């Protein structure tokens, strides 16, 4: 019988995927500044949020990966 996957594994994978995409966008914007930057762009929100989501996503993905 196959083991059950926890719902938190999928939350982790989603967080990880979103986090990596947002982090990559944020880093890309450092090298290629936006033509119409949003307000408070100097705080680099995408890098912070992307990094936090990546770390949280990694934690949940690893902690709740399938047990065999």
């Amino acid at each position: 019988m196959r083991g059950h996957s926890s719902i938190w594994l999928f939350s982790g994978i989603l967080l990880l995927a979103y986090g990596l995409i947002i982090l990559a966008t944020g880093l890309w914007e450092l090298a290629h500044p936006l033509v119409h930057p949003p307000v408070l762009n100097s705080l680099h929100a995408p890098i912070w949020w992307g990094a936090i989501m990546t770390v949280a996503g990694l934690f949940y993905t690893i902690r709740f990966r399938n047990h065999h």
Partner: protein
Amino acid sequence: MGDSYTHLWSTTAHFRDNPMGIHWTGLVFGLGLVISFGYWTTDFLVVQRVLSAHNLRAARMSPIIGASFKMAVPFIVILPGLLALSVLPFHLVPQDIAIQTGQHSYNEVLPLMLVRYCGPGLLGLGVTALIAGFMSGMAGNVSAFATVWTYDIYGAFLNKKASDSHYVAMGRWCTFIGVLISVGTAYLVQHAASIMDYVQALFSFFIAPLFGTVILGMLWKRATKAGGFWGLLSGTCTAIGLWAWVHENPSALRYVALSVDAKAMAEDMYRALWSWIVCVIVTVVVSYMTQPRSDAELEGLVYGATKIPEEHDDYWYQKPIVWAGAVAVVFCILNVIFW
């Protein structure tokens, strides 16, 4: 920023003094007593969560847990609006003015704030979160619609002996049709002053009188079938009639909402109160005119005629009343802070 933006009660002494155009009686009796109680006890979206609880304590705890989260809703719903009021470089106007002048309406506050502060990556996340929120609310409502139709109406009255696969297929078609109906009703919102006004208007039509019927049917042994039917029908007709009256003749607002200064939302709350009162009075009068049922027939249906299963809690913190008390204390504190 005016007091009316950051206070609950201090500006409700007169209809003129607050942007909702409401008096505190409308908030306490219309919104608090009728619409809110009705939403928590008759809206199937809420009730289905209690019905699916695995024991009595879980069923009692679920509305208490729900209430503690519900108290946080103003911080999620109102705070972005207040922030927008102070940080957006332009003034937001009501929907009908926005359509005429090309300004931004206050219904657009969340997308406007997202566009202002979020670059491409975070903006996508924000839009995803908004859509996920819409979908979860919609999924709950559509599944409630499918359940009520398939189990309680179709399976109970129209087609009692069909196979399980037939009922599953019926439920799936209901879900599909429910989504189509939801899309269709979205166009009705265009005619309301705001999305909230539209929701409250529907609540006053259906939830307010239904609450009168449910509360009397559950707690009052003398209530009869005919009383419930005529009470619910007259309550709903009262609400729709009052709405149509003001729709045709706007000056009727001073009778329905008690003041010429009342706004659409105030009208919704008073309309809910009137329809509930009519429902209760008609139910009581018709019930006294019809034959009562014996206690044996009411077993399992009415509070006084039903044996409540006993439950045993090992620790004080497992008792629902403790948590209900905690929620009540926080509720009072919040009301004092934002008085």
